């Protein structure tokens, strides 16, 4: 059974007056049906742009997208980047949906919630408006919003941030997509609400069997929700593994740095040192030669790490890392 989503060498470049900004530099990965993959990285790593590229929501002018994104819809596979515009619209919101970070501003303030959800349904299904509104109420109930029928008439400003995000999720799920892309959906929410939304997403996924690409910079969330993790840095994937494997055996120094940057708030329990990764994310227009992380890496070896871009090495079964010195790093840190 071929993968649901197969991304081959995705490249996204933006044209600005100062030159070309390579936001995504050859990202490849695949996703099986029902899987949850977390895309982790700091701001500027290219994770959001990757997701926008999959949806073909990148700006139309000044932006170049290259590569192949193969999506399996039922039996057929098609390259999303090569689809004609109309065909892509039929995919968006229907077979692949996306939810965004800011529930406050992601909904149209002058239309009712019910109207907006119904619109998403009517766009892809030939049913009556009344039926669409019924379905919208069902969906609001599904995402745990009390008094769903009443909520249909509400405007977004009547709802709290958490409720709005639930409504966004309802809207995204309205046509039963095979893939949901969640771009930092909980980052703008309170911690307790965050947990609720994650719980909801897990529940919905079990119920519908859809695959999820979850974008975040929060490793705690990753541990909660992901099956597999991909770490991105400077527009490339630098490590890929099953979630437990990644946390137990991070191979790439950047990943190790990320994990160590999470403060350990439980006192006395095998206290690790809190370490920040020194330096800053590189300017995408002036990426360091060779491995993009080498200026900040404590395992940097001149002549080796800055010579050529490392390929993704297989470290264990299902575990890839983009580091030429991963074996030495593993033995040092052990």
């Amino acid at each position: 059974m071929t993968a649901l989503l197969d991304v081959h060498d995705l490249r996204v470049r933006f044209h600005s007056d100062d030159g070309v900004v390579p936001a995504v530099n050859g990202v490849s990965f695949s996703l099986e049906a029902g899987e949850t993959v977390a895309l982790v990285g700091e701001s500027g790593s290219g994770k959001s742009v990757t997701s926008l590229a999959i949806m073909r929501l990148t700006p139309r002018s000044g932006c170049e997208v290259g590569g192949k994104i193969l999506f399996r819809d039922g039996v057929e596979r098609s390259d999303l980047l090569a689809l004609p515009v109309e065909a892509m619209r039929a995919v968006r919101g229907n077979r692949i949906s996306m939810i965004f970070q800011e529930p406050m501003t992601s909904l149209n303030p002058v239309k009712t919630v019910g109207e907006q959800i119904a619109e998403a349904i009517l766009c892809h299904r030939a049913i009556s408006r009344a039926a669409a509104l019924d379905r919208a109420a069902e969906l609001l109930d599904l995402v745990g919003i009390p008094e769903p029928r009443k909520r249909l008439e509400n405007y977004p400003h009547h709802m709290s941030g958490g409720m709005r995000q639930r409504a966004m999720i309802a809207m995204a799920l309205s046509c039963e997509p095979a893939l949901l892309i969640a771009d930092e959906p909980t980052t703008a929410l309170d911690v307790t609400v965050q947990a609720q939304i994650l719980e909801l997403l897990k529940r919905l996924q079990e119920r519908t069997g859809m695959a999820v690409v979850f974008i975040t910079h929060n490793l705690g969330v990753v541990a909660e929700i992901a099956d597999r993790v991909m770490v991105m840095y400077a527009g490339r994937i630098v490590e890929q593994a099953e979630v437990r494997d990644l946390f137990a055996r991070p191979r790439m120094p950047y990943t190790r740095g990320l994990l160590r940057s999470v403060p350990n708030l439980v006192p006395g329990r095998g206290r690790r040192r809190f370490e920040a990764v020194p330096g800053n994310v590189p300017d995408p227009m002036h990426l360091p030669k060779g491995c993009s992380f080498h200026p900040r890496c404590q395992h940097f070896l001149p002549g080796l790490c800055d010579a050529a871009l490392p390929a993704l090495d297989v470290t264990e079964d299902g575990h890839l890392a983009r580091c030429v010195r991963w074996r030495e790093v593993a033995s040092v840190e052990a």
Partner: protein
Amino acid sequence: MSDLAAALPAAREKPRRSRALRRFLRHRLAILGAIVIAVLVLGTAFGPHLIPYDDLHIDIRHRFQAPFLGPHILGSDQLGRDLLARLLMAGRVSLTVGFSAMALSTVFGTLIGATAGYYGGWLGTVLMRFVDAVLCFPTIFLLLALAAFVQPSVLSITLVVAATAWMEVARVVEGQVRALRDRDFALAAQVLGASDTWIVFRELLPNAIAPIVVAATLNVARAILLESYVSFLGYGIQPPVPSWGNMLENAQEYLSTAPWLAIFPGLAITLAVTSFNFLGDGLRDALDPRLDIA
């Protein structure tokens, strides 16, 4: 779009290729405007000495001469006066009124706005409500009402035009001063014991100079236009003193027989006003790109 913004750390504040092109073009328009203004100023100042005809010279034998068809380049009017000469002399008046009215209205508007913005409180509110109330009167109605009450002369018309043009400047200045008042450098000056006047004039206003300059430039355009309106309607600059506005008023009568009498003064006004508008727009763009929403 926070995610895209994060993806373009270096490119974010830099305009894309086409926007830079557009900014350059706009600058070109602004430069064009500046050149035209310079030409107009020089032309009206020195032109009358360079052309063969005097604007007052009446030559009944050559009245209503169409442009380019005789000795008068732009034609002549009902009294045989050379149109070009009259245009240039009228330009002196119109441009003078424009600049002076701008100067007066900018100074007055800045004073009111700075006072309101700096002191705030009830004084600020009263002043700004007053400005709002004056803005309720349609400009031309106010202009005419005031102009009708005074003896028309270049000075009085300048004052009247200035009286209807200061409000926008006051608003702009009030906003700027109010925003800058609480900034650290102003507070520092206060702590050092600087007087209010010092703070306003030496600390705050210099930082607000950009929008004031833009407003002032656009105000010249406005003033020229307003002078033309009030003179056209008969309550502005009175003949025999020529202004572009009263030349148009004169031309109305002969519209069907000698349309050039109306076309050229109108073109002159449009040219002057457009140039100042282009210049002001270009300045706004150049001095503070954040103000550029167009």
